[in-house]
């Protein structure tokens, strides 16, 4: 525990000093990575832990973004009121995900959540486009803070706060129960635990994180559109960040988000257009093939190797090492 906390502290210090070390342009890449990390962690606490794979996370992020955007843009609501309302509404929407989870599992659940995203994508364009901005969306939204450095710190501390909170929860008995649900839900029921209650909590918690990320992201960009928010590529970025980093670990999605964003953004001057996506796909494939549990396990293995421990973090037996 102490060792992990010192890693968090080191990471916080390092990331906090970034504005002194890198250009404003690079800082914007870090801001994007921080938001992807928030969304990927939100996905992880629900799907990575319980095994209920959500393909509809942009739906939750979009509900948060659109609610706050409409309130501020159309009703001149101040941000300190619109943002909590948007987050609360996202938590309600997150519990909507829960109802199909009572009856469906696996692929069917994933498809139901994908349908949530698709339906919302069309609804925001056709229902009251005068309010939602239709297919063009809404622009000129109030910004939470201005300037790259300020925005970087908002995104960084939101990400760190959420990351540390979820990481602590995941290391508690809650993480154990949610993981057990993924492994064998019926066996968890047979151990006397009401899995519905724990799932509802995970769904609402995931929505809370998606809601916080959604409102901050929207008021960082200053605009929102259905094509940008309910986009399958946006969904895949979140999913791949969580998977490539290492699902059900919380730290993995942060690693994955940074890895993916850096890969895409920093290779931009060197690899043209769609070739970049080809490289991105190939690297993702190689990681899946050789480290199916994600980058997190590689980092863990290297750390344990340096400390002279085996993969499970136990001291090497001198007989077998």
């Amino acid at each position: 525990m102490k060792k992990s906390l010192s890693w968090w502290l080191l990471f916080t210090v390092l990331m906090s000093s970034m504005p002194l070390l890198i250009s404003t342009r690079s800082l914007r890449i870090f801001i994007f990575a921080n938001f992807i990390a928030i969304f990927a962690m939100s996905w992880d606490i629900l799907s990575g832990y319980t095994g209920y794979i959500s393909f509809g996370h942009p739906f939750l992020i979009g509900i948060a973004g659109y609610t706050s955007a409409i309130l501020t843009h159309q009703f001149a609501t101040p941000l300190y009121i619109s943002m909590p309302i948007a987050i609360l509404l996202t938590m309600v929407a997150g519990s909507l995900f829960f109802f199909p989870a009572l009856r469906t599992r696996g692929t069917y659940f994933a498809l139901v959540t994908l349908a949530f995203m698709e339906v919302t994508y069309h609804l925001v364009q056709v229902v009251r486009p005068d309010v939602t901005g239709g297919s063009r969306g809404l622009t000129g939204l109030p910004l939470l803070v201005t300037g790259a450095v300020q925005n970087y710190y908002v995104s960084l501390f939101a990400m760190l706060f959420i990351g540390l909170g979820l990481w602590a929860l995941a290391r508690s008995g809650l993480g154990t129960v949610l993981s057990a649900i993924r492994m064998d839900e019926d066996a968890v029921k047979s151990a006397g635990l009401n899995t519905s209650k724990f799932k509802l909590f995970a769904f609402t918690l995931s929505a809370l994180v998606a809601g916080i990320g959604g409102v901050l992201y929207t008021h960082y960009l200053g605009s929102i559109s259905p094509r940008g928010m309910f986009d399958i590529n946006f969904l895949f970025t979140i999913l791949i960040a969580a998977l490539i980093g290492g699902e059900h670990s919380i730290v993995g999605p942060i690693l994955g988000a940074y890895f993916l964003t850096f890969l895409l953004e920093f290779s931009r001057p060197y690899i043209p257009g769609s070739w970049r996506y080809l490289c991105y796909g190939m690297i993702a494939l190689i990681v899946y093939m050789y480290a199916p549990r994600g980058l997190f396990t590689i980092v863990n293995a290297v750390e344990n190797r340096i400390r002279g421990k085996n993969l499970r973090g136990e001291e090497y037996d001198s007989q077998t090492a």
Partner: protein
Amino acid sequence: MTAKLLELNALTKKFGGIFAVYDLSFHVEEGESLGLIGPNGSGKTTTFNLIMSELKQDEGNIFFKGKEISGYPTHERVKMGISRTYQIPRPFGEMSVTKNIRIGIMPDEILSVMRMHSASKREREIGISVGFKEHHLEAHPNELSMGDLRRLELARTIATNPKLLLLDEVFAGLTAGEITELSELLKQKKKEGLTFIIVSHDLKSLAPLVDRVVVVSFGQRIAEGSFEHVVADEKVKEAYLGK
């Protein structure tokens, strides 16, 4: 007079047009050890699934401590004091033995569960009480023998603090030595006051453990009584061996 701990009354479960359990009634008394035997496909595991609410009966009632529990979900029945093991062990594969047992100990409250951060003394005690060696407690299920996996199933159910244990094919896949060890353990638990219903095809191992036996065939009860009495029953011989 001993009280009835569990009572099944005219239980029926149909899959499509086939009766898996038909009009099945029996009871088990407090402190008793009941054997539930019958040929393959006779509805023994289905009966366990019905008792645990993993399946819903089409007809009939289930009473536990005199209370009708048909409307109660699995976790509520476990909290009342019924617990089961599975025919094919179902450990949480990515978790150590102690963590597997921890799932059984955990209270059904989110806030209390959040406060559980490290291994408790009780999970180790339960692990040791079912025969795990200290160095096995941090092992993962893929490192365990079938005997140890059965022990783990038992430990996880004991962790829920049951009054009634449903043991499904506990001796399957075990060596003679492991069967003896497990039998001793069950005798010990019986002495401590636990009530059992044991399903087993291994009648030789079952015989010394049970006070009474219920025999089912095609989902129906065909005989009931002491072990010696039922194995001598013509209907039972016919069910096992054919006419």
